[in-house]
């Protein structure tokens, strides 16, 4: 059974690092670097997990998450959010918007992998 992760991130180097890590874990990694059409891409790709950056061109990760949670059948999709802004207010806003896990950059690779594994396990159980 293939597991698909959609990575929405505008920094090419970070995208490359996460793709490398998750491919080795057996994930099929799809990427997208724009904010504006991110919700449509998520719906179209229908991934098992979304990794979402906050500062994206066109539309912020917060707004994408909020819009996504409005959609039918997208309430339970695990979303791991990454941000480089590091302000505590962001974490609150993300939790209100319905984030599954919130992490601050820079992260350690094992942290990301553990989070992905946990979220996937939770989603498969329910």
């Amino acid at each position, binding site marked *: 059974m293939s597991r698909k992760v959609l990575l929405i991130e*505008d920094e090419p180097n*970070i995208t490359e690092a996460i793709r490398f890590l998750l491919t080795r874990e057996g994930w099929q990694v799809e990427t997208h670097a724009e904010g504006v059409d991110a919700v449509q891409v998520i719906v179209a790709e229908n991934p098992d997990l979304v990794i979402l950056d906050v500062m994206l061109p066109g539309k912020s990760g917060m707004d994408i998450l909020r819009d996504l949670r409005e959609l039918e059948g997208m309430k339970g999709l695990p979303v791991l959010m990454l941000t*480089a*802004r590091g*302000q505590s207010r962001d974490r609150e806003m993300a939790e209100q918007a319905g984030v599954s896990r919130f992490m601050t*950059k820079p*992260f350690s*690779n094992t942290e990301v992998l553990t989070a992905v594994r946990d979220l996937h396990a939770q989603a498969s159980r329910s």
Partner: protein
Amino acid sequence: MATLNVLILVCLGYVVLLFGVAFAADRMAVAGRGKWLRSPLIYTLSLSIYCTAWTFYGAVGNAARSGLEFVTIYLGPTLVMISWWWGLRKLVRVGRSQRVTSIADLISSRYGKSNTLAICVTILAVLGGTPYIALQLQSITLSFSIFAEADSSGLYREGSSVFWVAAGLAVFAILFGTRNLDVNERHHGVVTAIALESVVKLFALLAVGIFVVWGIAGGVGPMMDRIDASEIGQWNVDAGRWTTITFLSAAAFVCLPRMFQVMVVENDDEGHLRTAAWAFPLYLLLMSLFVVPIAVIGLDLMPEGSNPDLFVLTVPLSQGNEWLAMLSFIGGFSSATSMVIVTAMALSTMVSNHVVMPIWLSTQEGSGSVSGDVRNIVLMARRVSIAVIMGLGYFYFHLSGGGAALASIGLVAFAGISQILPALVGGLFWRGATRTGALIGLSVGFFLWIYTLLLPGMGGGVMPASVLENGPFGWGWLRPQALFGIDGIDPMVHTIMWSLSLNTIAFCVASLLSFPSPLERLQGAQFVNVFDHSVAPQGWTGSVGQSEDLMIMTQRILGTIPAQVFFQAEALKQGGRGRLPEPTPGFLVRLERELSGSVGAATAHAMVGQIVGGSSVSVEDLLAVADESAQLLEYSGQMEAKSAELSRTARQLREANEKLTQISMQKDAFLGQVSHELRTPMTSIRAFSEIMRDTEELSAEEKTRYAAIIHDEALRLTRLLDDLLDLSVLESGQVSLNLGDSTLRTVLDRAISTALAGTDRKLEIRRSLTSERMPLQTDLDRLGQVFINLISNAQKYCDAPDPILTISAHDVGGQVVIDFIDNGSGIPPEAQSMVFEKFARVGFDKAGGAGLGLAICREIMQRLGGEISYLPGQAGAAFRVSLPLAHKQAAQ
């Protein structure tokens, strides 16, 4: 000879007659009959209590001693009556409209109903009045003694007779002066009795005069010869003394409590003054007509050393004309008694109203029994006051021993009481006069009077001779009779000059410096403008139609609801059913009072007057209105200025607050952005370094690639830190400029080669080398930094297939202007104002710019005294750099 017995009988009979007249007049007045009691003639005659025993006997004595100087005593009141009747009319009008009971009450009422002032005036009046009463008692005693000398029965004992006379007069004053407590304080009985006494004393003096001229001298012609032969006939005038005493008697005529009593308090028709204006001077003329003949004959006939004050008695006696002497005695007795009775009444009113009653009321405070029979208490206070004042007069007479010291008392009392004059006249004619002014003026005059005249006149017992000669503590300039070293003038003239002038100056200066209370202002206006204010309100009558107009006006002033409430209450009070009351005088007065609370008394009066039409609006009314409006305007102007200031402050605060909020938000955003810009490269560095550390099966290519990424991101981090540091140094203004000379061309050459080095993105640069020759004197490295930034921006962001950057330079008005224009799609208009802000990246900068470049450029150009701006309306992105030319800078 039973002369003394007869005399006593005649006296008693005369007193009984007076009682009878007074009693009858009172009865008639109560019954409403006897209008003649209030004729101008009675009023004029009552004024003649001015002529006391001092004038009756003393004028002849004065003439015998000092020649014609006695005339001055008559001259003062005559001048007042003839030339200042309009002032007296005002005084009478004020007195009546304010219902004053005494001169102390008048002064107090004018200056905001100040009881302190009333007490001052009362003390002054009692101090001046007591010796004056003693003087009357002395005259009676002396005249008695003349008859006693001629009498052998030895019945006469001086001391006891004076006592009985004083007691009798007190009883008379109490019986007729305090019978009732009329609001108008008018005493018909007393006034009628006094008028009778005036007739008697005039008749007596004329009789003696006629007897002297035709009975002794033998006609007018021989009389004139005898006068010419005597010293009295010689015209011997001391101008200073004459002027002073004339002025003094004029002042006293207005200020003396007893004169005020008959002239103002007892007056019931202002019109009477018109008659008195000629009749009273005529009375004085008749009183003085025979003074000189009697004095001349007296000096001729009477033995050396006899008292000239008693010539009026002794001359007829020496001729054996006892009945004429008796008549003369009755005349003197009349003068004395009328003065004493009225003075006692006037003083007792002042003492009881301003001293006794306030003290009594303050002791009653809180017990709640004030509402009881205050009337009786007031009457009792008056009666006791009369008794005490008579007692004081008697006591003073007893102390002074009845000696010659009393002779000058009349003028001394005049001088004391005339200290009221500045406050009185000022209060009537000057709205600016204040309570403080009156109090200070009065105190100054009062003190100087006591110090320079009263104390020195009392003899060595009261004021040591050393003080008189050398001044207190040996200060010569403070000698009581030669203040400030001005020596050698008559003590009376000296006192009047200093006390009245300093009194007036103190009054005026203190009035100008002090600020009147609202009540003082109101009273001041009512006094000064009495002819506009006093009678008119009573005269208002109107029709119901006017009520509507009044209502409309009142609504405008008080507001709709309060005006309706007021009018409805008034209508109810009148028993009417409508909303509008009848414009009765009572209602109009209350309305005026209500309005004056809002717009001032003068305005309220003028407004009501205009609607009801009872009086036309006078110029004074308009002036008073303007006065009030000016004050209101000034006040509202101040309020406006204050509120403008407040709203200005509020706006400034709001602006400051907005600015602070904005700065705080900018700071938050800046920190968030810095954090983001720092964390992003660090994330890549950390992720790839962990990958390289933890992954064993990496290929060599992968290793090289990941190491390159780490390297690039580290460089990006370094650049960002450099930019941040650069910016903070520039922004804090701590940057030091490294000035150098060069040309624009050299600087551009260097910048282009630096910007284009180490990159494979192509950019064609078009320049016009000839225009780049202009010299520059500036920090060449910093300027180069700006150029590099602009060139690499074009290199990074120009989206044309063949990117071209055109650099052109001009000399515009002493400025070097360099334009950098590329052929890309440019910066969208909404972002143009943002490009120089920190982290304001237009589009996304994968090449690693943090968005600080243009912000740094702006700071640099500011430091260099130039400017960098976006140039809208060009083909592509266009920036303009301008800075001063080198020679311009050199010239500075």
